[in-house]
């Protein structure tokens, strides 16, 4: 430990990188665990939910996914309170183990066909535990790193924690792709999908042993030795007007907008390509994976930049750019995948079993499969369209890095040490878990509603109510981020009061 010129105790550089490494690794594993479920949502829906109606099964999974998000604020309250009373280190060790055990257990639950209704119930319960664990983890890791850091480098140091969510998603996609490519499609569908869940147990054990040897945060230790820790952090955070008004400001002026931009860039883009544009599963994952890989370094850049020019301008610039450009970006993505506007190479059309495959002049192919009265379409885009879509998703990831890179430092500096874990965790998880986590479901609902409305009017030969129904889902993030931008612009300070 060292004391800087301002008399603040900070860790030595070597210790700091160990702290960042251990915290980031654990948080990364938690995100991996959390995203495996979302990335395998389609398969899970067929295994654990009645398969009579695939849409209902998929919506059930989304609901379970949402349940994982909705309980995050409760995890934030429960573990945040513990973290402010007994310490950051022990609390985020518990959340790590809880997450690992829940994830591993999901991989062991027998399917609906074997144990009936107990299967979806067990999966739902385990998903709720995952949400609780994640609710406690992030605030602990961010607070722990921030309290070890020099105040003027807090944005840069905590930005490494911010990369973990994206890297966790990237690794979850990579593990799924590797597992799929190492076995037949039937084997993956039968039992292979369980492997990514089971792999979590190994990663959690490794991370647990790394974290076990870390010291408690110096600021928390100092507060504890001076008897300055809170005995009732919940009451102090939310029952005290002075603190509660900052909790509300953090939520409405920052995390609410940041949450929807994060989930639009990383998750709705995936859902939009799969469900609205009908791009095939593997290609969509490659597109998102490539964009994430190219964009992840910018979390650190924007964290560093926020130490120089302030958190507020970086985050608000990201929000504003997203609000202004989402519709043109998604419209271009749709056009790149819309085979009705491409020139078909008629002589290359072929039939394979129940499928009809059409080839287009830009190298794209579209496969139509008819089962009963239902026809499904899957598009595999050509090389040029593929890289154009990667670029468009990358731009969205860039917005994510602008709003998300500085947010940990921003939240940490908004609240004092004694109630920091509790106070910062709640707005973070309400903003991200609820406003962001519900985004794919709400946006998909809005698109479906617009398409149904257009179809109904089309049959009656009247003017269409929606000019571009595929963009209807974007109104949710645009509206939420718009309100957050105005509140942030007017009410947030560029420098918070608890910089020490």
């Amino acid at each position: 430990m060292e004391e800087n010129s301002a008399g603040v105790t900070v860790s030595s550089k070597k210790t700091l990188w160990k702290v960042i490494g251990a915290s980031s690794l654990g948080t990364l594993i938690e995100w991996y665990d959390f995203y495996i479920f979302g990335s395998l949502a389609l398969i899970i829906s067929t295994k654990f939910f009645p398969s009579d109606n695939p849409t209902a099964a998929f919506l059930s999974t989304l609901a379970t996914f949402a349940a994982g998000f909705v309980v995050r604020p409760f995890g934030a309250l429960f573990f945040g309170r513990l973290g402010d009373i007994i310490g950051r280190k022990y609390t985020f060790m518990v959340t790590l183990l809880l997450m690992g055990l829940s994830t591993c257990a999901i991989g062991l639950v027998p399917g609906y066909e074997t144990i009936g209704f107990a299967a979806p119930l067990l999966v739902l319960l385990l998903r709720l535990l995952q949400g609780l664990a994640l609710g406690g983890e992030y605030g602990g890791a961010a607070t722990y790193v921030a309290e070890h850091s020099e105040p003027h480098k807090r944005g840069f140091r905590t930005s490494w924690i911010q990369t973990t969510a994206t890297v966790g998603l990237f690794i979850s996609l990579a593990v799924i792709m590797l597992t799929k490519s190492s076995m037949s499609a039937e084997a993956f569908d039968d039992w292979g999908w369980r492997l990514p869940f089971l792999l979590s147990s190994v990663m959690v054990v490794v991370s647990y042993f790394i974290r076990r040897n870390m010291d408690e945060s110096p600021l928390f230790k100092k507060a504890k030795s001076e008897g300055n820790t809170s005995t009732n952090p919940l009451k102090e955070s939310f029952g005290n007007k002075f603190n509660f008004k900052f909790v509300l400001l953090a939520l409405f002026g920052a995390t609410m907008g940041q949450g929807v931009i994060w989930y639009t860039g990383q998750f709705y883009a995936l859902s939009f390509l799969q469900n609205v544009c009908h791009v095939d599963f593997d290609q969509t994952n490659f597109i998102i994976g490539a964009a994430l890989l190219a964009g992840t370094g910018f979390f650190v850049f924007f964290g560093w930049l926020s130490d120089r020019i302030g958190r507020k301008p970086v985050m608000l610039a990201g929000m504003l750019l997203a609000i202004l450009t989402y519709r043109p970006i998604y419209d271009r993505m749709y056009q790149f995948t819309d085979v009705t506007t491409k020139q078909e190479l008629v002589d290359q059309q072929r039939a394979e079993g129940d499928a009809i495959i059409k080839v287009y002049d830009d190298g794209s192919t579209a496969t139509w499969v008819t089962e009963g009265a239902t026809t499904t379409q899957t598009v595999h885009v050509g090389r040029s369209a593929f890289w154009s879509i990667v670029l468009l998703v990358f731009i969205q990831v860039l917005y994510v890095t602008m709003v998300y890179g500085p947010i940990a430092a921003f939240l940490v500096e908004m609240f004092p040490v004694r109630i920091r874990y509790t106070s910062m965790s709640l707005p973070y998880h309400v903003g991200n878990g609820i406003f962001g986590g519900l985004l794919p479901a709400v946006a998909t609902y809005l698109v479906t509603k617009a398409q149904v409305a257009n179809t109904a009017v089309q049959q009656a030969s009247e003017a269409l109510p929606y000019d571009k129904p595929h963009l209807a889902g974007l109104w949710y993030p645009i509206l939420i981020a718009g309100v957050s931008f105005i509140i942030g612009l007017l009410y947030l300070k560029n420098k918070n009061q608890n910089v020490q």
Partner: protein
Amino acid sequence: MNTIKRILGVVWIILGLVAGYYLIISQAIPQFTSGKTEDLVPAIIYTFILMPIITGGLCIFGWYALQGEYNTSE
């Protein structure tokens, strides 16, 4: 700037109430009464999660803004 912050407090309160009305009247009630199982989850989320956070949160935030709690010393 402080005057604008205070006046906008009214806007946040109204926005919270409008959002609450939309979530309950336009979304939750029709879904609760649709009789479809798949509508139940969103209806519960609108009523017990989103509405309290958006309406309650924005109204309190607006009230604090109106009271000058977010004013900066000039």
